[in-house]
């Protein structure tokens, strides 16, 4: 009986260990926990006229390297602008104050992210700082609309004889 009890206890212990190892594997190897340290870093804000479909946790990159993530998106109802709060890892503390922030799209239909183009200022962004130079996301519908509009204009001006 005592022997039996020992076997049961050991195998239950092994079972719980296997389960926890599996959970740990999922957390460390499968999820983005390893690539996105939470809590460390400093926050800067940027105001955009239009953020497109930018989401919280979208990457913030410079030269293609992920420096941080978007942590909050708010709406300012006085200036009618989107206020995007980004958390940038504290080791990247030499980002110039006049950095240019733009919303890009990964691939043609991929998710949107913020790309930073460094400025030339000697003062660097600090916690609570604000990026003033921004460019909104490109909304595909607007471009298509503009393209169709231009095409229609072109046909009206001199495009007689072209097939439709």
């Amino acid at each position, binding site marked *: 009986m005592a022997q039996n*009890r020992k076997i*049961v*206890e050991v*195998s*239950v212990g*092994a*079972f*719980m260990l*296997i*389960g*926890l*190892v*599996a*959970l740990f*594997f*999922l*957390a460390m*190897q*499968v*999820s*983005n*926990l*390893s*690539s996105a340290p939470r809590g460390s870093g400093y926050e800067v804000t940027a105001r955009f006229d239009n953020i497109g479909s930018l989401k919280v*946790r979208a990457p913030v990159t410079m030269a293609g390297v992920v420096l941080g993530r978007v942590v909050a998106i708010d709406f300012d109802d006085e200036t009618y602008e989107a206020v995007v709060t980004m958390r940038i890892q504290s080791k990247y503390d030499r980002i110039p104050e006049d950095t240019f922030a733009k919303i890009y799209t990964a691939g043609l239909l991929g998710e949107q992210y913020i790309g930073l183009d460094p400025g030339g200022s000697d003062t660097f962004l600090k916690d609570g700082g604000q990026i003033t130079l921004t460019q909104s996301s490109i909304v595909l519908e607007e471009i298509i609309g503009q393209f169709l509009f231009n095409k229609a204009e072109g046909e009206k001006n001199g495009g007689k004889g072209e097939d439709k």
Partner: protein
Amino acid sequence: MIEQLARLGRTGLLALERLGRGHLLLLAILKGMTEIVRRPFLLIAQMFSVGVLSILIVGISGLFVGMVLGLQGYYVLSQFGAEESLGVMVAASLVRELGPVVTALLFAGRAGSALTAEIGLMKATEQLSGLEMMAVDPVKRILAPRFFAGFLSMPLLAALFSALGILGGYLVSVGLLGVDEGAFWSQMQHKIDLHEDIYNGVIKSLVFGVVCTWIALFQGYDAVPTSEGVSRATTRTVVHSAFAVLGLDFVLTALMFGD
């Protein structure tokens, strides 16, 4: 006419009565937690029969489900030239859906039916009444340890299922189909979120653990104490568990991911 109406009413009342008994039993089981603190070996022994003995079926199923996901996903994704996303697809479908759901269905078939049969037979052979005669509360002594064993085992089994499934998907897609290894893991790590995907999967499996074990215990405890009654109760356990898991999965998915 009146007779048929009365029959309908009787059926409804009986169903409600069963539902009420089930909830009272759940309450009694939760109150019976104290017994586990005093005698932890009761819980450990049940963890063995509910959890350890389910490792093999859950692990092997997980491995094969992951391998099939790799093969099928490759067929669709390669048409769009997006084979690199195979890792994301395999991991997301396992962690979010298949891990908790398939584990719960296997659990209901492997462990739930055994629980019902065991308790139903205990009732049929009047062992439960015997315990009561000796002033031992069968709910505390028999049902509570089994309930918590199921509650604790399910998330561990589901995590094992998902982890082995991802490894199976990795074997097939990288080893067999020639997907780039770096892209497989890095895309996965980029897209799978710890809170959004993995925690929600664990929450799902906790809920399924409670529901499956509860159904199994109640069906056994409430079984008609004959051999036919026990066999019916065992069947009902599997059927009701499957319904409950699939229905609840829809509700939970809508709550978690449906924004």
